[in-house]
């Protein structure tokens, strides 16, 4: 488990991170969401050790980590970077070896990764000759080249075409399945919602919410319900304990506690045919807007 504890960072008078604390569990895909300038990249740079925190610590399973542990991290920076003139395979092998992998293993991993990312036919091409989407895939391969024990990816899906998103996603899921803690940032909230086990929300340098996605969404705001009936649901307005959020003919979205909701359902059945009745789990984007407000 990767733990970030009480990390604070200032640039001059500006405090960019304030007591940032959260964990990334083993084998958990953790989404790191926040607006531009919220502190995502700074946090990730501190995690990976390219920036020093003013205070606070980063530890794995309770042990503070140093440079040699960080070499086993895989990192994909927000600002993509590769050597434009260096051939793809050679480049991946080079990055793997910089992380301490021996020559033969590095070459094997490179072949394997390029295969899985659909880049095998470009192995000998210089990176600058590849399309942007393919360059992104190479970037992903560079982060995974040394079979990292922790993955930190800054906006891994931005700039990827939908097919590449699926490919990269599969690779990340597989890493998580092997028990690797995976932290990635994104402002595509729908992607995070689709992928992540856990979510960490940051705004203005402070963590606003962190935990399993399910819990966050369920416990965001009062419980809400959706009801769809054949006739008009105007009667719902007069029900005690019900706050209607949306109302449209036979459809209603309302807030109510569990007992009230059950009572409403019974009333609905008495009134006529019920099309559907379900608790409404808020979208991640709604949760996000709620907690950063």
């Amino acid at each position: 488990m990767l733990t970030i504890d009480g990390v604070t960072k200032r640039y001059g008078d500006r405090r960019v991170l304030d007591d940032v604390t959260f964990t990334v569990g083993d084998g958990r895909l953790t989404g790191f969401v926040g607006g531009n300038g919220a502190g995502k990249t700074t946090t990730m740079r501190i995690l990976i050790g390219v920036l020093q925190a003013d205070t606070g610590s980063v530890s794995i399973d309770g042990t503070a980590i140093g440079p040699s542990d960080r070499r086993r991290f895989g990192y994909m920076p927000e600002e993509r970077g590769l050597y434009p003139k260096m051939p793809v395979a050679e480049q991946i092998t080079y990055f793997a070896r910089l992380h301490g992998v021996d020559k033969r293993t590095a070459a094997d991993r490179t072949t394997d990764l390029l295969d899985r990312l659909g880049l095998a036919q470009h192995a000998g091409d210089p990176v600058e000759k590849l399309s942007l989407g393919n360059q992104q895939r190479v970037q992903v391969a560079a982060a995974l080249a040394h079979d990292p024990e922790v993955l930190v990816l800054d906006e891994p899906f931005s700039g990827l075409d939908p097919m590449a998103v699926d490919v990269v996603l599969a690779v990340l899921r597989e890493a998580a399945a092997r028990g690797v803690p995976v932290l990635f940032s994104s402002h595509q909230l729908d992607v995070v919602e689709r992928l992540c086990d856990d979510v960490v929300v940051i705004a203005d340098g402070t963590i606003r919410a962190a935990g399993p996605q399910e819990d966050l969404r369920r416990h965001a705001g009062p419980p809400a319900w959706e009801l769809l009936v054949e006739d008009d649901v105007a009667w719902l307005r007069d029900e005690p304990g019900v706050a209607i959020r949306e109302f449209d003919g036979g459809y209603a979205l309302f807030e109510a506690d569990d007992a009230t909701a059950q009572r409403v359902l019974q009333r609905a059945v008495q009134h006529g045919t019920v099309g559907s009745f379900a608790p409404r789990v808020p979208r991640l984007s709604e949760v996000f807007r709620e907690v950063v407000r």
Partner: protein
Amino acid sequence: MNGSFVRSVRLVAAREIQARVRSKAFVVSAGILVLMVVASIVVGGVVGKATAGDTTPVAVVDGVTLPTSRGLDVTEAPTAAAAERLVESGDVDAAVLPSDDPLGYKVVGLDDAPADVVQALSVAPRIELLDPGAIPGGLIYLVALAFGVVYFASAVTFGQSIAQSVVEEKSTRVVEILMAAIPARALLAGKVLGNSVMAFAQIVAVAIAAAVTLAVTGQDNMFTVLGPSMLWFVGFFAIGFVLIASLFAAAAVLVSRQEDVGSVTTPVMMLVMIPYILIIVAYQNPTILGVMSFVPFSAPIGMPMRIFLGTAEWWEPVLSLVIVAVSVVLVVVVGARIYENALLRTGGRVKLAEALRG
């Protein structure tokens, strides 16, 4: 210094060398430099031989006895008139005719006094040289020029290439991935090492090409004269280049775009350019040369020059080399600090003071 640091340095250095060898610009410029040195030695040899074996054609009328015919290519002529005709036709530079002068002959030229012939026929006092081993002035100039050009060309080529490769990593942002894997110092050390190895290889190639050319063109004696200073030059360059490379790297890391490399590396360029100009302008000034031979940036050419002239005591190159080595350590420490602090700051130009403070 632990094993992984050394391994990182080696990997970075190997990549630098590979990138350099792959670049056509590098291969071509190295080839041109070697060709230039070889050509200048060949041309120097040919010209030298031509002047040494040069003789002046002269017509001598039968019956005239010359004190010496050294330096003259004598054509015998039956009569004075025949000899004069040869002068007029341009077959000979001058004619020697019998006369009533105390010498018993006179020299006839076409339109100006035939100095070569007069010189050859003149009686000269015996000359005794107190310093018979002294080197001809022309050769001194050539050697000064050669040291200057080779030093300048190599330092600038490889200095610029290290500067560009530093900025390439910043401008392509690959630096952040590198920093996540290895310490900034290992990256800097690898870059300096890789480029120094290439610069050193080029200097050695030039030295070998020069030695081989001297031997092939029959100027082996030159090798005895030049050998020691060439060896010192190579040695000084090997250490001195690390100094220059570190400065180029530290200067280049302050900017993030290739267009800005020129402006930040200009001061470093000056440090290379000034010794180059000085050695050509002031190669005969012992004071300037003496100072140059101990200043770290000019020592790689100043000291070999003094060794070539035979004006350096045995301990002087050793002391100078120590001075260069100490300044290398200082510059590398300061340069590494600048490098570490400025490496991740992309965008505008980083102020030197900020980079030093961190």
